[in-house]
């Protein structure tokens, strides 16, 4: 039910300190304050979050699915970009 009065918002939740906000879904709300409340009511009912961001969906610039080949395929042949070829000294532990 997207109308000019209830635009779409994207919701990002940070579940723990030290983690990044993660996209969890979207909702409709009249403005930023109501979007934040709706996000709290819909996406944090089971203790999922410590912090919420809401962003107007219209503020997001998305890549065009039609550009997929040009955008992403060139990276597929460059396996040397993965850090799996480096020897890591034992003293470093987990990276």
């Amino acid at each position, binding site marked *: 039910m997207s109308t000019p009065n209830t635009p779409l918002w994207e919701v990002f939740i940070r579940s723990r300190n030290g983690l990044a906000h993660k996209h969890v879904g979207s*909702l409709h709300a009249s403005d930023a304050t109501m979007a934040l*409340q*709706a996000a709290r*009511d819909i996406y944090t009912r089971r203790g999922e979050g410590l912090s919420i961001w809401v962003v107007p969906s219209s503020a997001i610039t998305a890549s065009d699915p039609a550009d997929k080949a040009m955008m992403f395929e060139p990276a597929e042949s460059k396996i040397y970009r993965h850090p799996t070829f480096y020897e890591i000294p034992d003293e470093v532990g987990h990276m």
Partner: protein
Amino acid sequence: MMVANIQVSETPLVLYTLRRADDALILGHRLSEWSGHAPILEEDMALSNMALDLLGQARELFSYAAKVEGKNNDEDKLAYLREERQYRNLLLVERPNGDFSQTMVRQLFYSAFADLYWRAMMKSSDATLAAIAAKSEKESAYHLRHASEWVIRLGDGTEESHRRAQAAIDDLWALTGEMFSVESGERGLIDAGIAVDPETLRAQWRRTISDVMIEATLALPTNDWMQQGGRSGRHSEHLGYLLSELQHMQRTYQGLTW
């Protein structure tokens, strides 16, 4: 066969706790009536969340009332097996949901009080009530914020939403005075530091409501005549219908569980 009414030994502390439990139970039930019917999905969830908060408060208060009473009653019996006159909730909370603005104005009036009330009750000399207050205060603070934001938007929204919000305020205003009444037997609890004197909350409540009204471009009625009755069991015709639905399963199948 219908399960019979229970008897309750209504000592001052039992009765005092039941009054607060009944407020939460009845308002929670009213809000739950919106489940699946709210104007948008987001608000459906918000109303259900508030209903569950209130139901949780009611459960703790009923359990405590049963414990204080020390008879054979428990939270379910107190919630489901009393007759209408034994319910002592505010007339405000039994009012039907009406349109969305009626529900939100009712929630604003109640939550603005509950927020102050529970915050003050955190200092109660009764440890259980103080603990219930500490949990309930956070919930009420959110209910107040949610209802305030909605009333501001309804009042300062379209011509129709403004008209409906103002009508809700005019309609419900006379039921707000009962929140500040001190019933017989309660003065002793106040003097003992168990209960809060609601009179000490009135000025701040009025300020909270007035601030919302100004932002919402709405006006409070100038007539301050107030209707009483719920606290002493004299209810509007609406409560009986609510109770028949609320009690149906426990009246028909005593002790039924999920």
